[in-house]
């Protein structure tokens, strides 16, 4: 990329479902002349928005895979990643945020800060991503950008400062007042291409003056020069922009803009703000781990001349073959050169290098530091780091949540079997939260992920993209087992009849533990010889994947061994492993094992009149209502509900609230299943096993 690094912006667009992010991205592509016509997300022309390139995304009107695209605005080169709005696809959002330098947080001017905005904001905070807030849909009935700005402060604890005001709202929205330049901006022409600047209408002048004063008060905290100029009454546009930029980059200020992407209002000003206020790659401190130096943290340089460090953050297997999206943190990737995957140590040759524009691409010869491009035919997993071999760095690992739901998929014939394998191979490489394994007893293929919709989408993709016809089982909750009290064991494994004998005695106790598993060696006097201690540990660990209640994995156990016995001839590694397995079995049942289930944090929101119905429906699902927040005619009910009770809830909620309420959920914690429910689950598992 020929653009200098200070003119590069790697940005993400994140928001709650239906806040209009795909529409906004579509407008950005139009105004930056990457596309020459506007198509709506659910448009009558049947073309669908550009960024929703997968058929399924177009059909459902939500974005599933984050398509990366490149555009240029004025003298800025902008890489945009359009990210999904549903919590089930959070890993996509998280991966995007990991490689981006800044983000635009879109909010609906009617819905305001909704549950997913809170999740996305939390993720942005985790990755220190500076952001601009864009209050979209100001043309909608009930639009209230002032209320949304207040919510940004209250609910997201952001120092949100309006730098624009709308000229009119709902159907009367005409344009935008820019509080930095103190001009009224109108968007003329069929697609809002022609920008007309005017004086602020007299009726709004006082409101604009007050809002500007408020903005200057907040912004001048980041610049002494501006503060002095404000006191003297001489602040310039440049001073204000510089101060907003400083505050935004420090994550201490969130400039708030307004507009309506659908009505073509405000998008060009947002693009200006991306250049003015969001960071360039050199503004952001990125850390790599030096694998040759005990994983010491090293700050990457962003210099194109330095050794290469690039992160593969997304894999896609589209019609052009396997595509690997990479972000370069330092150095340059050149076509034809060899790069090294630091996880596997494998060298790979860069065949084709492309800049992606949704599902179209542009061949390039090299990609400099700070850029986001795609490579062809590179075998790697999402999250792998590439270098040129001169250094051995790995970009810090990403937080990956464990799957909470699984279901069995059975291909209908041999052809479908082959296609399903290909699809699963690709999906598991692309999405670390999507896992698959074969159930040894039933021979079924089990897929697991972060929610019903998550698995639903992959099943649909297997059918549509790979032609894999499948029979799909009912969703199963990923139960776990744990113990609730200390229990002793003293087990002897003895086989001394015929052939070489086996002998090992292991004694000690199991007790509840806050982590997953811990082994404590408290043997004194060598009752178990040192060389067999690790065999005991191995035996106990082998017992953990299958609990005695439902064969669910066991977690939260500390095993302490404090006594035992061995035989000079018949004791061996195998004998002590088997003794430990026996000892665990003996102790486990005495330690009052219980079943644990995933509890989801559910946030349901809808009109206040349905608050009682929403609470009742969650309560009936063994939900624990944490609280409710009322604002105007809208209410949010927060609850913790077992995942097993949430299947099909969206249909129930819709019918209870005339389709006016929606909910999101994400995994919160594993908690003990109530006894009566556990009995049922155990009986059902037993029945299944007998079948």
């Amino acid at each position: 990329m020929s653009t200098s690094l200070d003119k590069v912006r790697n940005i993400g667009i994140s928001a709650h479902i239906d806040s209009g992010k795909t529409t906004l991205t579509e407008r950005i592509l139009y105004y930056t002349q990457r596309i020459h016509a506007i198509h709506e997300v659910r448009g009558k022309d049947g073309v669908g928005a550009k960024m929703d390139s997968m058929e399924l995304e177009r059909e459902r009107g939500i974005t599933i895979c984050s398509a990366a695209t490149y555009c240029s605005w004025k003298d800025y080169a902008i890489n945009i990643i359009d990210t999904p709005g549903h919590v089930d696809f959070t890993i996509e959002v998280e991966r995007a945020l990991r490689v981006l330098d800044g983000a635009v947080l879109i909010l609906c001017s009617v819905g305001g800060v909704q549950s997913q905005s809170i999740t996305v904001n939390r993720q942005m905070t985790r990755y220190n991503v500076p952001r601009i807030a864009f209050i979209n849909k100001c043309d909608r009935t009930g639009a209230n950008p002032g209320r949304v700005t207040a919510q940004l402060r209250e609910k997201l604890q952001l120092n949100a400062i309006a730098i624009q005001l709308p000229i009119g709202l709902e159907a009367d929205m005409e344009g935008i007042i820019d509080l930095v330049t103190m001009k009224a901006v109108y968007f003329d022409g069929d697609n809002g291409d022609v920008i007309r600047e005017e004086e602020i209408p007299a009726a709004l002048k006082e409101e604009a003056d007050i809002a500007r004063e408020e903005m200057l008060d907040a912004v001048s905290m980041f610049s002494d020069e501006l503060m002095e100029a404000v006191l003297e009454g001489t602040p310039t546009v440049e001073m204000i922009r510089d101060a907003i930029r400083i505050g935004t980059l420090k994550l201490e200020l969130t400039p708030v803009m307004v507009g309506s992407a659908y009505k073509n209002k405000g998008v060009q000003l947002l693009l200006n703000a991306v250049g003015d206020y969001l960071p360039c790659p050199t503004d952001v401190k990125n850390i790599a781990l030096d694998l040759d130096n005990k994983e010491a943290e090293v700050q990457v340089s962003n210099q194109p001349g330095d050794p290469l460090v690039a992160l593969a953050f997304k894999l896609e297997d589209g019609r052009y073959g396997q595509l690997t999206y990479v972000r370069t943190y330092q150095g340059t990737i050149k076509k034809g050169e060899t790069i090294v995957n630091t996880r596997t140590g494998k060298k790979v040759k860069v065949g084709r290098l492309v800049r992606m524009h949704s599902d179209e691409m542009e061949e390039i010869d090299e990609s400099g530091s700070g850029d986001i491009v795609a490579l062809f035919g590179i075998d790697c997993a999402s999250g792998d780091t590439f270098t040129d071999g001169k250094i051995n760095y790995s970009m810090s690992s990403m937080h990956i949540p464990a799957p909470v739901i699984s279901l069995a998929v059975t291909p209908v014939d041999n052809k479908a079997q082959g296609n399903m394998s290909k699809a699963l191979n690709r999906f598991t490489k692309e999405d670390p939260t999507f896992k698959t394994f074969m159930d040894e007893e039933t021979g079924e293929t089990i897929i697991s992920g972060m929610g019903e919709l998550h698995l639903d989408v992959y099943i649909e993709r297997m059918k549509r993209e790979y032609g894999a016809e499948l029979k799909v089982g009912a969703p199963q909750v990923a139960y776990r087992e744990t113990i609730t009290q200390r229990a002793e064991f003293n087990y002897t494994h003895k086989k001394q009849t015929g052939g070489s004998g086996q002998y090992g005695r292991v004694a000690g106790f199991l007790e509840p533990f806050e982590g997953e598993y811990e082994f404590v060696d408290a043997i004194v006097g060598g009752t178990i010889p040192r060389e067999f201690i690790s065999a005991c540990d191995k035996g106990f660990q082998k017992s953990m994947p299958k609990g005695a209640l439902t064969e669910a994995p066991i977690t939260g156990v500390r095993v302490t061994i404090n006594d035992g016995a061995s035989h000079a001839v018949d004791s061996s590694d195998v004998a002590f492993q088997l003794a430990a397995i026996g000892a665990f079995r003996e102790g486990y049942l005495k330690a009052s094992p219980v079943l644990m289930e995933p509890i989801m944090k559910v946030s349901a929101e809808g009109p206040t009149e349905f608050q009682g119905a929403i609470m009742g429906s969650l309560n009936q699902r063994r939900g624990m209502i944490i609280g409710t927040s009322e604002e105007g005619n809208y209410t949010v009910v927060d609850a913790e509900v077992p995942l097993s009770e949430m299947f099909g809830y969206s249909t129930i909620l819709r019918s209870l609230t005339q389709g006016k309420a929606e909910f999101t959920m994400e995994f919160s914690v594993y908690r003990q299943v109530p006894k009566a429910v556990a009995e049922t689950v155990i009986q059902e598992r037993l029945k299944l096993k007998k079948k």
Partner: protein
Amino acid sequence: MQKDDLIAKNPLRIFAQDGAGKEITQRMGLVMARAGLGKTAILVQIALDNILRGRQVLHVSVGASLEKTKVWYDDILQDIAEGAKLERPQEIRDAVMRNRLIMTFKEAEFTRPKLEERLNDLVYQNVLRPACVVVDGFDFAGAGREAVADIRELMTVMDLQFWFSAVIHREDNRVSAAGVPAPCHEVDDLFDTVMLVNPVTDSPSLSLDVIKDATGCVKPGKALTLDPSTYLVKKA
């Protein structure tokens, strides 16, 4: 220490029974203090005392977020668990989760009809049957006597205990005959119990003075103390 010891040793138990040992079910209680002296912490402890005694609590937060209110409970429970060396703190946390519900309202939106509707919803949907409602952040200065009298009536109708918090402003010296400062000086007759948080001269601790109690549980003048670092209530 176990849950039962915690209940027995809780200094706030003094408000549970009247002089004859009869359980108090209805009460309009008020905790007053200057900003930052622990009103919310006291309300949370009153709520926790009720929950530990097996009563359900609705915590109404006017103007504060749900998350912020939840954090108050988490922090105070943590302090109690550490201070009392609780054997099974998770058991208490679970009890709190099951028996407490937080409702947040914008200032202008909290009214008796709305609260009554929500309380009826909770009972009808079998979500919660509160015996105690704590209201934090109620705007006494703007609300007027009628609004407070309305809530007192609701207390009788629904057989509840209400506990409110109110902020005292240093510059406002108005006081009722019973010694209740502004902004509650004109509605003090609508409250059965009024407590005031006062800094103790030459000491970092705070005193929780009972300046009015019409239920017969406590003699006016009795004081509890507050740990200034944790805001936990202690016996004086």
